[in-house]
């Protein structure tokens, strides 16, 4: 699930075209697609669940009683609980800014929002090591020398309160925020672009203030686009491996998230346990898929409604 980059609904429902291809070509194409899906999607998913339950339901359930596993689940939930709201706020601001205003560097900003989608997640983790790590920019503050401790009150404060970023939860959250930040913005931008802001203007002439316009007009308009973005953001936040792996340090009971824990279990030949945890992530993926499809459908409906009324 890590690295599963999804496509975004950037199109406004195109009219259906009659195809000129012969039925044979159609069968061939659809057949190839189905075989491909079977081999690369359905089969692996089936194997995950089959392996997870290979030693029975009891072993499956026991996996989650294990302290290290329970901790990994907890850390993953905390990470998502911080990263998703942060990116919801960022995504809303970004989508608002690029769809409502025309400013210098606007198209550059739109491209930059996508950056985490095209760089390797490892780099997403590495940048934080280069900032907060022992050899990094802020290394002297986070890993202070005795002189630094006595002269710099920030370093002192960090040391006294035992604040850590790298090889700790804050680093994991930072790396997760980095890799997930395009999702909400990308879910909203096409929707907000198509809808325009006539309804907001109407609300303004009716005496609504900024907050009322936002909560009563804008949020209902973009609701499904927002949910769509949030659900993808959440899936990626929980499933991210690469970026988190770099900053985590893989300390059991401390800095292991579910994907990292799966790797550890697997390397220790605890296959049933590894697949049990993997199956939970897979279920998350399936639930995400269902909600995503529904949200997509609703968002398209909102787009169509906007198009129909000539906005």
């Amino acid at each position, binding site marked *: 699930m890590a690295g599963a980059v999804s496509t975004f609904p950037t199109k406004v429902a195109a009219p259906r075209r009659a195809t000129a291809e012969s039925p044979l070509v159609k069968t061939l194409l659809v057949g190839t697609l189905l075989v491909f899906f079977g081999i690369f999607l359905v089969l692996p998913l089936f194997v995950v669940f089959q392996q997870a339950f290979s030693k029975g339901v009891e072993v499956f359930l026991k996996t989650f009683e294990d302290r290290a596993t329970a901790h990994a689940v907890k850390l993953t939930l905390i990470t998502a609980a911080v990263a998703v709201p942060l990116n919801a706020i960022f995504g809303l601001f970004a989508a608002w800014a690029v769809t409502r205003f025309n400013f210098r560097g606007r198209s550059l900003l739109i491209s930059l929002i996508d950056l985490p989608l095209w760089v390797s997640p490892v780099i997403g983790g590495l940048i934080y090591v280069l900032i907060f790590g022992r050899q990094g920019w802020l290394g002297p503050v986070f890993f202070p020398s005795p002189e630094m401790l006595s002269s710099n009150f920030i370093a002192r404060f960090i040391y006294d309160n035992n604040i850590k970023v790298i090889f700790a939860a804050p680093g994991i959250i930072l790396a997760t925020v980095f890799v997930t930040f395009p999702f909400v913005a990308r879910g909203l931008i096409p929707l907000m672009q198509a809808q325009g802001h006539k309804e907001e203007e109407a609300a303004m*002439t*009716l005496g609504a203030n900024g907050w009322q316009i936002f909560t009563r007009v804008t949020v209902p308009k973009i609701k499904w686009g927002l949910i769509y973005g949030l659900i993808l953001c959440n899936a990626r936040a929980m499933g991210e491996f690469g970026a988190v792996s770099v900053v985590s340090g893989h300390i059991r009971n401390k800095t292991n998230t579910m994907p990292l824990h799966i790797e550890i279990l697997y390397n220790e030949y605890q296959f049933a346990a590894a697949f049990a945890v993997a199956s939970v992530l897979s279920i998350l993926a399936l639930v995400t898929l269902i909600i995503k499809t529904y949200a997509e459908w609703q968002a398209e409906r909102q787009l169509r409604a906007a198009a129909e*009324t000539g906005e």
Partner: protein
Amino acid sequence: MSIHIRNITKTFGKFVALNDVNFTVGGGELVALLGPSGSGKTTLLRVIAGLEFAEEGNVLFGDRDVTRQSAYQRRAGFVFQHYALFQHLSIFENIAFGLRVRQRSQRPPEPQIRARVEQLLETIQLADFAKRLPSQLSGGQRQRVAFARALAIEPEVLLLDEPFGALDAKVRKELRHWLRRFHDTTHLTSLFVTHDQDEAFEVADRVVIIDQGAIQQIGTPDEVRESPANSFVEEFLDLDGTIPA
């Protein structure tokens, strides 16, 4: 309540959208702002509503200088060309919106809101449609809802931006007559933007002809038709062939 536009100048970058525009809409008057597309008429209407701000000049509602006020403080009733109804709200709630967003101290109690909305639904002959969504209505019906929504806040002036522009010819005629009758009973000061001279001449008490951000002529339909002020007005009116040769 009269509307006074004084020395309004508005630019978009280097483009001068409005160039020192002056005129007054008298209290209880129905005035049409007529001009070709790109003439600045919609910009002027938006400046009056507070949706756009001019670099120079003043806008007054009666004695009240509203130049520095934002749209939500001015509370001019505004009707958009493409209705701009709230898609997620029922017709009833669309009309009630302006009353519901008022501060608690000024908000009418629920039964009063209800009564007001129902009365407006009667006026626009859509009483049976209260629970529907805008997407379930025809264009003409939607525009009537937009009227009612703007009227619900009891505005002192009514501004209409090409209100019939998106409708087909038959509905357009009907709504035109409806607007004139409505105005004759309420005498609500109204300014409407149009590029259609038939519409302007048929509905309005007075017509303001605008081109390239400047007023070309102001007068009653008869005055304008009989003595066009300059060659632009003459040509603009001639183009559609409405003046008998």
